[in-house]
C-alpha cells in the first residue's frame, strides 16, 4: 500500500525505542556473571515474570498476525488465538511442575542430566536452534511490515533495523533487560488492545467507513454489454482486454489513458463489473491501479456491503456492545478482497477483487481451513494438524520454558504462569474485535494482512497508531531478543560447552554467547526478507509444529515413562525435526514461495504436526523398547 511518513508516530516510536534501549543498558551494568546473563539470577518477582511471560508470548504473531488473519479470513484467524492459549494448558499442567522438580531449566538440561548422552546434547541443541529460527522468521517479517507505514521505509530496511537493534540489546545486556522490557511491553499491549476495542465498539458499523484523514474510496460498479461471455462495451470506458483466471473473469477498462481492472460477475443473466485493485509490474515499472505509486490510487480496503440489525438493513449502527458487535456482523455482509495473478501484455498483474462474503460464513471456520461440506480430506487433515500443533507446540518452545525458571520457587513459577494465561486469554479475546474491526473499517492493506491492527488504530487517530506501532515494534524487539538468547544458548552452552567439551571460563562463555547471538541475528534478518508478505501467524504455526514434533514427545516420555532411553529420545527428536521440516518444505505454501504452482506441490498439507508428532512419539516408544538392554547393563557396570 502507499503510506505517508507520520512524523508524530515517528517521534513516539523513537522515544519508545530509546527508552527500551536505555533500560537494557541500565540493567546491563548490573549483569556480570553467566548465570545472570541467561536466567536473571532467579531474582524476578512472579507478577513481573507473569506479565513478561505474556509479553514473550504475545509476539508480533499474536498482535499483527492473528488480527490480520481474522480481518481477512474471519474465524479461521481466531483458531490461532484458541490454539495458542490452549497450548499453555499443556505447558502448565503437564510440563512445568515435573520439569522444575528435576531442578533443571531447559528440556535440554533435563535430558542431559538424566541421560548424559552426547547424541541427546547434539539433537536437542539443533532442535532448539531450528525452532527458534522458525519462530524468528515471522517476527522479522512482522518487523518489516511494521516500519513500512511508520517510517516509509521498504520492508527489508525494517527487518535489518530490528535485527541490528536486537543484536545490540542481546550483546549488551541479556536476559535481565529483556524480562523487564517484556513486562512493560506485555502490559502496554493489553492496555492498548483494550483501548482499541473500546474505540471499535463505540464506532460501531457503517457502510461508509470514512476515517479522520480521508474518505473511503467508493468502488465503482458498472453495467457492461456482454456477448458470449465477453464484455464488448461499457459506457464512458474503453474495453481493453479480458482474462479468465480459475473460472473468474477480469476485464481491463481504460479512461483518460488510465487502465483499471474490474471483475465480471453474473446473476440472473445480469452482468456487473466491480472495480478491483491491481498492481502491474513490467519493464522496470510498477503501476498501482494503473498509475504511479505517488498518485496514491492504491486504496485501503475492507467494508460492509449490508448491515442487518434485527432483520432491518441499516446505513450505520451507532455504538454497540461486544456481543451485539459479533452478532450483527454475523448477520450482515462484508466485502473481502481476494487475490488473482496473471500476465497481461507481458506484465505481471496481481488483481485484488471484491469478494462479497456473508457474515455468517465469516464468523465460522472454513474460509482458510475448509472443513465444511465438500471439503477435501486433505483440508480437514490440515485443520486438525494446525489445532494439534498449536495445542502441543507452546510447551515445547525453547524460549518460553527458559523464562519459567527465572523466579525463585515452584509456587511463584505457577503463579506467574496463571497470571500469564489470564493476561494472554484477555488479549486473545480482544484480537477477535480488533481483527473484525479492521475488516469493516476500510483500513486493510491488500498486500499484507499483518498490519490490520495498527492501521485500524490509525483510522482512530495518529496518536493511537503511533503508540500501538511503537508497542508492536517493542513486541518484536523483545521476542526476537528472547529467541536469539535461546539460540545463542543452544550454540554456546549446549553445543560448544557440552557437546564439543571446550571448557571455557565465565568471561569466554559470555563472549561465545554474544558471538552466537550475532550470527543467529544476521541469519534471521536474511530469512525475514525472504518470507516477506506472508501472514506471520501462519508462519508461527510452523514453528509450533516443529517444536511439538521434535521436543514434546521427548519431554513427555522423559517425565512420564521410566523405560525411556537416550537412544529413544535422540531418535524421536531427529524424526520430529526431519519429518516436520520435510513436510513444510514440500507444502503448497512453500511451492508458492519457490515460484511454482501450489496445486503441483507434493502433497496438500500445510501443517505437518498430524504426521510428524505421532511419528516422533512412535519412534521414542519403539526405540526405547528396543534399547532396554543398555540401561540395566549400564546400571550393573
Amino acid at each position, binding site marked *: 500500500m502507499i503510506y505517508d511518513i507520520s512524523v508524530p508516530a515517528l517521534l513516539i516510536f523513537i522515544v519508545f525505542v530509546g527508552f527500551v534501549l536505555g533500560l537494557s543498558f541500565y540493567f546491563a551494568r548490573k549483569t556480570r556473571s553467566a548465570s545472570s546473563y541467561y536466567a536473571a539470577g532467579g531474582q524476578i518477582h512472579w507478577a513481573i515474570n507473569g506479565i513478561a511471560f505474556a509479553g514473550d508470548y504475545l509476539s508480533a504473531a499474536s498482535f499483527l498476525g492473528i488480527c490480520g488473519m481474522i480481518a481477512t479470513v474471519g474465524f479461521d484467524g481466531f483458531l490461532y488465538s484458541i490454539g495458542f492459549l490452549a497450548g499453555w*494448558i499443556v505447558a502448565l*499442567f503437564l510440563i512445568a511442575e515435573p520439569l522444575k522438580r528435576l531442578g533443571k531449566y531447559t528440556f535440554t538440561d533435563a535430558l542431559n542430566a538424566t541421560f548424559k548422552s552426547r547424541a541427546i546434547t547434539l539433537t536437542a541443541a539443533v532442535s532448539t536452534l531450528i525452532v527458534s529460527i522458525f519462530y524468528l522468521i515471522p517476527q522479522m517479517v512482522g518487523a518489516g511490515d511494521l516500519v513500512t507505514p511508520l517510517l516509509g521505509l521498504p520492508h527489508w530496511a525494517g527487518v535489518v533495523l530490528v535485527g541490528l537493534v536486537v543484536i545490540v540489546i542481546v550483546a549488551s545486556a541479556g536476559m535481565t533487560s529483556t524480562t523487564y522490557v517484556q513486562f512493560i511491553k506485555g502490559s502496554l499491549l493489553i492496555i492498548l488492545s483494550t483501548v482499541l476495542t473500546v474505540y471499535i465498539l463505540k464506532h460501531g458499523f457503517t457502510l461508509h467507513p470514512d476515517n479522520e484523514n480521508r474518505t473511503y474510496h467508493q468502488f465503482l460498479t458498472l453495467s457492461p454489454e456482454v456477448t458470449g461471455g465477453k464484455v464488448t462495451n461499457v459506457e464512458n470506458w474503453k474495453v481493453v482486454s479480458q482474462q479468465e483466471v480459475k473460472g473468474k473473469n477480469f476485464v481491463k477498462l481504460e479512461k483518460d489513458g488510465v487502465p483499471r481492472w474490474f471483475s465480471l460477475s453474473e446473476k440472473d443473466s445480469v452482468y456487473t463489473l466491480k472495480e478491483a485493485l491491481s498492481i502491474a509490474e513490467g519493464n522496470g515499472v510498477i503501476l498501482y491501479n494503473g498509475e504511479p505509486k505517488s498518485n496514491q490510487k492504491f486504496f485501503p480496503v475492507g467494508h460492509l456491503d449490508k448491515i442487518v440489525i434485527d432483520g432491518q438493513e441499516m446505513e450505520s449502527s451507532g455504538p454497540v456492545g461486544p456481543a451485539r458487535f459479533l452478532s450483527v456482523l454475523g448477520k450482515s455482509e462484508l466485502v473481502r478482497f481476494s487475490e488473482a495473478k496473471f500476465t497481461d501484455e507481458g506484465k505481471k498483474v496481481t488483481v485484488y477483487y471484491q469478494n462479497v462474503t456473508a457474515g455468517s460464513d465469516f464468523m465460522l*471456520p472454513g474460509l482458510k481451513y475448509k472443513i465444511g461440506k465438500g471439503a477435501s480430506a486433505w483440508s480437514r487433515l490440515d485443520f486438525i494438524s494446525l489445532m494439534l500443533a498449536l495445542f502441543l507446540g507452546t510447551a515445547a518452545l525453547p524460549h518460553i520454558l527458559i523464562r519459567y*525458571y527465572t523466579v525463585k520457587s515452584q509456587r511463584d513459577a505457577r503463579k506467574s504462569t496463571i497470571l500469564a494465561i489470564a493476561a494472554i*486469554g484477555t488479549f486473545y479475546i480482544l484480537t477477535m474485535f480488533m481483527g473484525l474491526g479492521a475488516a469493516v473499517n476500510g483500513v486493510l492493506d491488500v498486500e499484507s494482512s499483518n498490519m490490520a491492527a495498527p492501521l485500524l488504530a490509525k483510522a482512530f487517530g495518529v496518536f493511537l497508531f503511533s503508540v500501538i506501532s511503537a508497542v508492536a515494534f517493542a513486541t518484536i524487539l523483545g521476542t526476537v531478543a528472547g529467541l536469539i538468547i535461546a539460540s545463542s544458548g543452544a550454540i554456546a552452552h549446549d553445543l560448544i560447552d557440552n557437546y564439543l567439551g571446550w571448557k571455557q571460563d565465565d568471561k569466554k562463555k559470555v563472549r561465545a554467547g554474544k558471538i552466537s547471538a550475532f550470527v543467529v541475528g544476521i541469519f534471521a534478518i536474511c530469512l525475514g526478507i525472504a518470507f516477506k508478505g506472508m501472514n506471520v501467524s501462519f508462519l508461527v504455526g510452523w514453528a509450533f509444529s516443529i517444536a511439538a514434533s521434535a521436543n514434546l514427545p521427548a519431554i513427555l516420555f522423559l517425565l512420564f515413562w521410566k523405560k525411556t532411553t537416550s537412544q529413544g529420545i535422540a531418535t524421536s527428536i531427529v524424526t520430529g525435526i526431519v519429518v516436520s521440516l520435510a513436510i513444510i518444505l514440500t507444502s503448497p505454501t512453500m511451492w508458492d514461495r519457490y515460484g511454482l504452482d501450489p496445486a503441483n506441490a507434493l502433497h496438500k498439507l500445510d501443517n505437518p504436526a498430524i504426521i510428524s508428532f505421532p511419528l516422533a512419539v512412535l519412534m521414542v516408544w519403539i526405540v526405547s523398547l528396543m534399547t532396554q538392554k543398555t540401561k540395566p547393563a549400564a546400571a550393573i557396570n
Partner: protein
Amino acid sequence: MHHGPAAELGVDNASAKKSRLGVWFFFVYLFFYAGFVVIGVLNYELLSHEVWGGLNLAIVYGIGLIVFAVLLGVIYNYLCSQYEDSLNREEQKP
C-alpha cells in the same frame, strides 16, 4: 544453556499429587478442546447454530475455551497450593 543455581525447593511431598492433578486437568481440557475440533470436522453445520445472544456455537465455544483455560489454571493453582501447605506442614511436625 548456562544458569544460576537451581531454585532451592527442599523436599516437596506434594509433588506426586500435583503432577497427577496436572495430568487430570490436562485431560479435562483436552476433552473440550478436541470436542471443538471434532465438531468442526464431523458436524461443521452445528458450529453455525445460534446458541446465545445471536452468537453461533463456534464463537461461544471458542471464547469459552479461552475462559475455561484461565479458570482451570486458577483452580489448579489453588489446589496445588493447598497440597503443598498440608503435605509439607505434616512433614515438619514430627
